[in-house]
C-alpha cells in the first residue's frame, strides 16, 4: 500500500517539474477563465456596459431634479450610468460629436412648469451614432419616467379635485397633503424592491461570468490534467520504467493503482490551485459550503480520473492520449456547459449534456456558488459523478487487464 502512494507522489513530483504540463493544465485554464470571464460578463449580468451621459439641465426645478437625483443617480442606475453635467447645449453637441459622451440629455427651461400645467415639452436626447444601443437604453429610462410623471400628475389632479369637491379636504391643505403622500410612497418604496432568490427564498448571487468560467474551465481542464497523468503510463512503458517497476517486488495491481493514484493527485492538485488562484486573484466565489465544495471537488476529480483511465485503455500510445484525449475533452467541455452557458442550450443539447460528467460537475458547483447550496443540495450531483466513476474505472481496468494478459 505504501508503495502505491510512493508511485503516485513520484508522478506528481515529475509533473510538477514539467513546464509543458504546467502551461497546459494550469496556466491555460487560468488565462481562459480570466479572458472569458471578462469578455462574456455582459451576457451574464444586469450591468451590460457603462453609459457616459452628459446632462444640460436648463430647468433646475423639482421634476428635473427628481429625474436626475432620484432616477439617474439612483443606486441601481448609477451602476451603469456615469453622469456629467454641462451648462451649454453647444458644448454638449460638440462633446457628443467628438465621442466624449455616449448620450446627451437636454432638459429645457421651464420643463417642470410646462409638465405641471399640461403644456407640451420634450426632453432631448443626443446620441453618438456609434453607440445607439446606449442612447436607446437612456431613452427607455426617460420614457418610463415621463410616463410615470404624467400618470401621477393626472392621478393627483383627479384625486385632489374630487376630494375638494366632496369637502373632504380644503384647497389650502392640498400642498401639505401632497407632501405627506410623497413621504408615504417613499416609505413603501423602501420596503419594496427586487431581490434574486433561490427556490428556498434565500438571496443568491446571480450569475457572474468569472465565476461561471472558473467552474466551466476548471472542470474541463480536469480531463486535460487527468490525460496528462494517463500519458505517463504510456511514457513509462515506452521508456522502460514501467517494466522496471514490474520487475520490482511489487504486485502488478499496486503499480497500476499507484499510477491511477498519481493521476488523482495531479488532477486534485490542479483543481485546488485553480480554486485558490481564482478565489484570491480573480475574486471568484466558490460558495459558502466548504464541506459541499470538498465533496464536489473530490467526486469530480475521481470521475475525470476514471474517464481518463477509460480513454487510456482504448488508446495505444501517449500521442493518441494527447491528441484524441484533448479533442474529447473539448467536445465534452462544449456539450457539458464548460464553454457556453447551459441556459442557452437548445432542449436536445441540454438532454445530451446530462450524459457528460462535465454537466453534473458544473451543475453541482453552480448549486454551491450561485444558489448558496450546501452539501445536502449537491448529493444528487456527486452521487451521479461517483456512479460514473465506478463505471469508467470498471470498464477501463477490465480493458487494461485484457490487454496486459494478451501482451504477457
Amino acid at each position: 500500500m505504501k508503495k502505491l502512494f510512493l508511485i503516485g507522489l513520484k508522478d506528481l513530483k515529475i509533473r510538477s517539474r514539467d513546464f509543458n504540463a504546467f502551461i497546459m493544465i494550469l496556466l491555460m485554464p487560468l488565462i481562459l477563465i480570466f479572458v472569458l470571464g471578462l469578455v462574456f460578463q455582459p451576457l451574464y449580468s444586469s450591468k451590460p456596459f457603462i453609459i457616459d451621459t452628459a446632462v444640460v439641465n436648463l430647468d433646475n426645478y423639482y421634476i428635473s431634479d427628481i429625474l436626475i437625483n432620484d432616477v439617474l443617480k439612483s443606486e441601481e442606475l448609477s451602476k451603469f450610468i456615469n453622469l456629467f453635467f454641462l451648462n451649454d447645449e453647444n458644448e454638449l453637441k460638440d462633446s457628443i460629436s467628438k465621442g466624449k459622451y455616449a448620450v446627451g440629455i437636454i432638459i429645457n427651461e421651464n420643463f417642470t412648469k410646462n409638465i405641471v400645467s399640461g403644456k407640451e415639452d420634450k426632453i432631448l436626447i443626443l446620441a453618438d451614432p456609434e453607440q445607439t444601443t446606449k442612447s436607446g437604453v437612456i431613452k427607455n429610462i426617460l420614457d418610463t419616467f415621463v410616463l410615470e410623471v404624467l400618470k401621477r400628475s393626472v392621478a393627483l389632479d383627479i384625486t385632489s379635485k374630487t376630494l375638494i369637491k366632496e369637502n373632504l379636504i380644503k384647497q389650502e391643505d392640498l400642498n401639505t397633503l401632497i407632501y405627506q403622500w410623497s413621504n408615504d410612497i417613499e416609505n413603501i418604496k423602501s420596503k419594496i424592491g427586487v431581490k434574486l432568490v433561490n427556490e428556498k427564498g434565500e438571496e443568491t448571487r446571480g450569475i457572474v461570468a468569472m465565476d461561471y468560467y472558473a467552474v466551466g474551465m476548471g472542470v474541463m481542464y480536469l480531463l486535460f490534467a487527468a490525460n496528462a497523468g494517463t500519458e505517463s503510463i504510456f511514457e513509462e512503458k515506452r521508456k522502460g520504467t514501467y517494466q522496471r517497476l514490474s520487475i520490482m517486488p511489487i504486485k502488478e495491481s499496486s503499480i497500476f493503482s499507484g499510477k491511477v493514484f498519481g493521476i488523482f493527485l495531479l488532477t486534485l492538485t490542479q483543481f485546488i490551485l485553480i480554486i485558490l488562484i481564482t478565489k484570491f486573484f480573480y475574486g471568484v466565489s466558490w460558495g459558502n459550503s466548504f464541506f459541499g465544495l470538498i465533496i464536489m471537488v473530490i467526486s469530480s476529480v475521481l470521475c475525470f480520473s476514471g474517464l481518463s483511465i477509460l480513454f487510456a485503455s482504448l488508446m495505444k500510445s501517449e500521442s493518441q492520449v494527447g491528441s484524441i484525449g484533448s479533442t474529447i475533452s473539448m467536445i465534452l467541455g462544449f456539450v457539458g456547459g464548460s464553454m457556453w452557458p447551459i441556459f442557452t442550450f437548445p432542449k436536445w443539447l441540454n438532454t445530451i449534456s446530462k450524459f457528460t460528467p462535465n454537466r453534473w460537475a458544473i451543475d453541482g458547483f453552480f448549486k454551491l456558488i450561485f444558489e448558496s447550496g450546501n452539501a445536502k443540495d449537491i448529493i444528487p450531483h456527486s452521487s451521479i459523478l461517483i456512479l460514473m466513476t465506478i463505471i469508467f474505472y470498471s470498464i477501463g481496468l477490465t480493458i487494461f487487464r485484457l490487454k496486459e494478459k494478451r501482451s504477457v
Partner: protein
Amino acid sequence: MNVVETKNLTKFYGKECAVDKINFSINKGEIFGLLGPNGAGKTTTVSMFSCLIKPTDGDAIICGYSILSKSLDVKKRIGVVPQDVALYPTLTAKENLIFWGQMYGFYGKNLKNRVDEVLEIVSLKDRQNDLIKKYSGGMKRRINIAVGLLASPELLILDEPTVGVDPQSRINILETLKNLNSSGLTILYTSHYMEEVEFLCNTIAIMDLGKIIAFGNLNELRILVGEKDKIIFSTINDIKEDIKIKISKIQEVDKINIFEKSLEVLTLQGRKILPEVTKILWDEGIRVKSVEIKEPDLETLFLSLTGKTLRE
C-alpha cells in the same frame, strides 16, 4: 550451488518461437555470458528470469524459487539492469535511487545508506544531485546499474548494459562488474559484443534463433571452433558472389563469407592458403586494401556454427 537453473524454458509470441526449450545452469559466484546476435532470444530469456513475462512452457529456478509460482520471491533476490536506461530524467540520480530503493522496500536510514553505497560503487556520488537528463550516456548507464544493485541481489542480470556507451565508460562498467563479482556477486551478462563476454565471463552460452547453440568456458568453446583462423580481406571494389565457387575449390577452406567490400575465409591453415586466395582475387580484378588473419575467437565460433556474424 546453482543460482539459475532452466528446465526446457520456452517462449512463443503467437506462432513465433522466441526461446526454444533452453536448458542451462549458472553457478554461484560466476559471471555467465549470454552471447548472441539481435533477435537471438537473449532479452526474452532475461525477461522471463526477471518475471516480466511468463514462459509458454518450462520453468526456471532462480535463487531456489520458481519464476512461475514464486515470482515475488525471485524478484526480491535479483537485481535487473534493463537494456534501456529505465530512469526518470527529470529526477536527480539520488531521487531516482531513493524511489527505486523504496520500491525494493528500503526506507529511512537503511535506504539512505544503501543509496550512498551504490553511488560509491558506480563512482557518481559527487554528481548525485544532478538531474539524470543532464548526465552523459555512460553516466546514465552507471546509474542504471546502480538501481540493479540497490537490493544487494544474489543474482545481477544485465541485458546489454553497454549499448551506446563510449569506450571509457564501457571499460569503467566492465571493471565495476569484475569488482562486484570478486566480492561474490553472481552475474548474468547478455551482449552481442564478443570482446566484452570474452573479457568478463567464466561461462558462456551462445544463443541463436531462440536456442543455445554452444555452451562452456572460453577454452571449451575455442576447442569447439577447431582452432580455425579467419582471414579478412578488405577490398577497394565490390566482391561478387561467384568468387565463392573459385575460393572454395582450395582444399583447406572451410567457410566463406562475402560482404560488399570484404571477404572472410575460415580455415585451419590461414597463412598457407593466403597467397592462393590473394591470387584468385587479383585474377578477378579485385584490388585488396588490407589483409588480417584472426586467431580463433567467439566471433569465429559463431560464424562457423551459424554461417553469419554476431552483428548481423
